[in-house]
């Protein structure tokens, strides 16, 4: 699903955290957003699945289109969110069994029979590279798994929604390097099926995974470009070169 943002500004109350963002994410690409803290990267993600509706004081102006359709025209925002998978910085295992964690989204969508849920749960856990570790303890509490497992559980939950768009917000900061690598492999495989927007403050991660990268700085989208050329110095804006060179961050 493509994503298009036109002249997007986001504010919390009177505080403007993002302004004048114009960008497009193509279908089936991994698109990275890099930048220092408080650049508005997370706020951008939150507008995509209309979490501004559930956040006090948050509002946006401008246009956001997902799959060609303006997100403001969706009357049933819950249906919109069901089509978008989200992974947060802190791993969240819900205090339900592993099975119920992954079956939650399908159940909310109306699928209730075990016979229908079993294959969805297994497929999602396999795609998230977690199946082998939990297949014998699907009734274990999701919130008591290790951090790396919980993060993969979050991905399994997101995948159970059969999303066309996957948003990851700094998914690796609370996760060990081995799990990070495994999740990066998962993302590389998923790329052929869905669009992935990856917010990260690990510049090398963007280089490893993303076809195109956007650089956000203090509420502004400074530059967007193909990842390889950008990282080898072919940038349009000095600030991008400085950030990639580690001169600030």
């Amino acid at each position: 699903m493509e994503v298009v943002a036109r002249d997007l500004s986001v504010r919390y109350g009177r505080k403007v955290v993002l302004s004048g963002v114009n960008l497009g994410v193509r279908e089936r690409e991994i698109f990275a957003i890099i930048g220092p803290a408080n650049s508005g990267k997370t706020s951008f993600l939150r507008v995509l699945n209309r979490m501004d509706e559930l956040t006090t004081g948050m509002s946006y102006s401008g246009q956001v289109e997902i799959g060609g359709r303006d997100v403001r025209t969706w009357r049933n925002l819950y249906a919109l969110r069901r089509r978008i998978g989200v992974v947060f910085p802190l791993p969240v295992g819900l205090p339900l069994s592993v099975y119920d964690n992954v079956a939650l989204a399908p159940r909310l969508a109306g699928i209730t029979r075990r016979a229908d849920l079993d294959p969805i749960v297994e497929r999602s856990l396999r795609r998230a590279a977690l199946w082998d570790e939990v297949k014998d303890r699907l009734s274990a509490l999701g919130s008591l798994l290790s951090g790396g497992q919980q993060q993969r559980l979050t991905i399994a939950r997101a995948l159970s929604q059969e999303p066309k768009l996957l948003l990851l917000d700094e998914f690796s900061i609370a996760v060990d390097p081995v799990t990070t690598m495994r999740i990066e492999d998962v993302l590389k495989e998923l790329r052929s099926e869905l669009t992935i927007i990856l917010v990260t403050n690990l510049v090398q991660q963007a280089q490893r995974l993303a076809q195109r990268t956007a650089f956000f700085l203090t509420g502004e989208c400074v530059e967007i470009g193909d990842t390889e050329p950008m990282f080898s110095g072919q940038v349009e804006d000095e600030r991008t070169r400085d950030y990639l060179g580690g001169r600030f961050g």
Partner: protein
Amino acid sequence: MFKATQLNHRNRQVESLAKVLLLLVTVVLIVPVVTILGVLLMRGAPLLSIEFLTTAPTNGMTEGGIFPALIGTIWLVAVALLVSVPVGVGAAIYLSEYAPDNWLTRIINLAIINLAGVPSIVHALFGVGAFVLFLGFGTSILAASLTLAVMTLPVVIVSTREALQAVPQAFREACWNMGATRWQTIRSVVLPNSISGILTGVILEVSRTAGETAPIMFTGAAFFLPFLPESVYDQTMAMSLHLFVISTQVPGVPEALPYAVALVLIGMVLVMNAASIAVRTYLRGKKKW
């Protein structure tokens, strides 16, 4: 370099002194509890028996048992719970999960705090005006239980709200981002993980309700009734009122009788509190995150 200095020495002395003083103060608070229980046991235990709990008072309430009062208290508490738990838990869910931070919410919170501070005698008069007279229930279990429910509503609301807010916000965000509605989130994740806190609040409410006298005195409890209540529209006897009556209103009561009644009443409260602690300890042991 690590030799003890004058300052170190003095710090340690002050530390010991503080610890002893604070310990003494804590021990002091056990004294009234032990004394009350001790005196009640000594003076009242001789009268306790199965018969005492299962027969009615006789001979102008100077002899016999407390059965109708016991049944009455159970009626009152049960009906009060039936009203206050759904209303209280529902209100707490709204306030914790739905209410935006606006003037209406602030007024509601203020109202709850104030309701908690209203003296029980004022609750009693409110009960008479609202339930006995205005709504026309007459002096009945219904009126008395509603009065008790109104009085203990803040307890249920506050403890439920605390239990709900102990559930990490991250869980809710995870559910919302998956497309769950607030109610679906509450039903699947928040409420099941708040049950222990809610239960604690309910049990505490029960122990408070069982002991109140003023709110039931004018609204539905009677000094003496020769029959058991059959519906919520009947009047009833009650343990707390019965204790008051035989202590002050009835002549010729043997000395041990009030102590025995008080012992049963406190016994009920202690059992409730123990149950609450047991529930909490059990559920806290089942650490879920």
